[in-house]
């Protein structure tokens, strides 16, 4: 009974019979007397945020597969940060006539791009996850698993040149040469 009290995991029914408040509160670990103990729920070392990037020429299976990756990540209890589409990379494929550079045939190709961002991911579980999604990879899809970086995030957006200019200008105010030219120093 006392040991259960010490662990602090007894219900109201068990403590009701006790006479004093001190008894009801139970014995406490001296370390936990003033501050609660914060236990780390992490079992293994973790990757903070990972990007699972899916690329392919056919976006219908790609999209279906994106939802599958999302579903499997949930089964592994990985929190899903975001699941989004990125603008496709397009290219024109040309074939030349023999011994010349006259175009015989051409076609527009687009590499569609989908990203599932997951994290935090316990390191040993990632291998099992990879094995699972590899087993179900559809035809012509390339999977890239990597750490999420700022460049990946910026790649999604249209670069704002005016904003960049302003930021550069603000930064240049720290430059001693510029300051001298402004007459501030």
């Amino acid at each position, binding site marked *: 009974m006392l040991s259960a009290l010490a662990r602090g995991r007894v219900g109201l029914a068990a403590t009701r019979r006790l006479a004093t408040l001190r008894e009801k509160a139970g014995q406490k670990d001296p370390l936990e007397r003033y501050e609660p103990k914060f236990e780390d729920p992490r079992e*293994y*070392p*973790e*990757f903070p945020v990972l990007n699972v990037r899916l690329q392919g020429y056919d*976006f219908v299976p790609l999209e279906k597969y994106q939802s599958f990756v999302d579903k*499997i990540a949930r*089964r*592994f209890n990985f929190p899903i940060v975001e699941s989004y*589409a*990125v*603008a*496709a*990379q*397009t*290219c*024109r*494929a*040309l*074939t*030349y006539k*023999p011994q010349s550079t006259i175009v015989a045939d051409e076609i*527009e190709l*687009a590499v*569609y791009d989908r990203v599932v961002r997951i994290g935090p991911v316990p*390191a*040993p*579980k990632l291998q*099992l996850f*990879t094995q*699972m*999604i*590899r087993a179900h*990879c559809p*035809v*012509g*899809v*390339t*999977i*890239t*698993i*990597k*750490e999420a970086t700022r460049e990946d995030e910026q790649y999604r*957006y*249209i*670069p*704002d*040149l*005016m*904003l960049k200019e*302003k930021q550069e*200008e*603000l930064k240049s*105010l720290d430059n001693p040469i*510029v300051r*001298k*030219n*402004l*007459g*501030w*120093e």
Partner: protein
Amino acid sequence: MFHLKSLASSIRVIGQRSLENGFHTSAACSSVFMKRQKKIDPEIAKVREIRKRKKLEREIREMQKHSKKVKPVDEIALDIKSAKNIHERTRKQVTLTEQQADERTLIAKEYCRSRNTQMRHDDQWIRQALYMQKKALAELKTLSPHLYEEAVKNDLGNLPHIIDGPALTSPVKNYDPPDGDYVDTTRTWT
């Protein structure tokens, strides 16, 4: 020698022309930051600096509010041109015979059942694999803590991990590819 002479004369001609047209070919050097200002009173300079910084910061903040525009994803966006004349491309509704309808329903059901079974197997595999891994790692921890640390650590060295999916067909033997090129036509914003 002749070449040099001709070159020099042509340069002269170009120079004259540019002067006639009122063009200046020197680099622009009239920015606020380039021209040297007179040294001013430090008190005033400080006030001006603070004002300038505040102004820039405010402008940046205003711009950041509206600046985050996602690159358009063409395959998801509505194609307005084809959406306008969509009624021209509607097909007649196909009426199936009873036998065909039954057949299709049966196929759909079988497909559904097979996907269901697969998902159940996958699910089972995931649960079992996680359980076994946990057990094995716990065992390893008791046997050799050093090896356990190695097995468990988040190694970024492996990480950009690239998996290529299967190809639709197997490689053709003795295939002689035609000459060709890829021209990148990805839209850029610069």
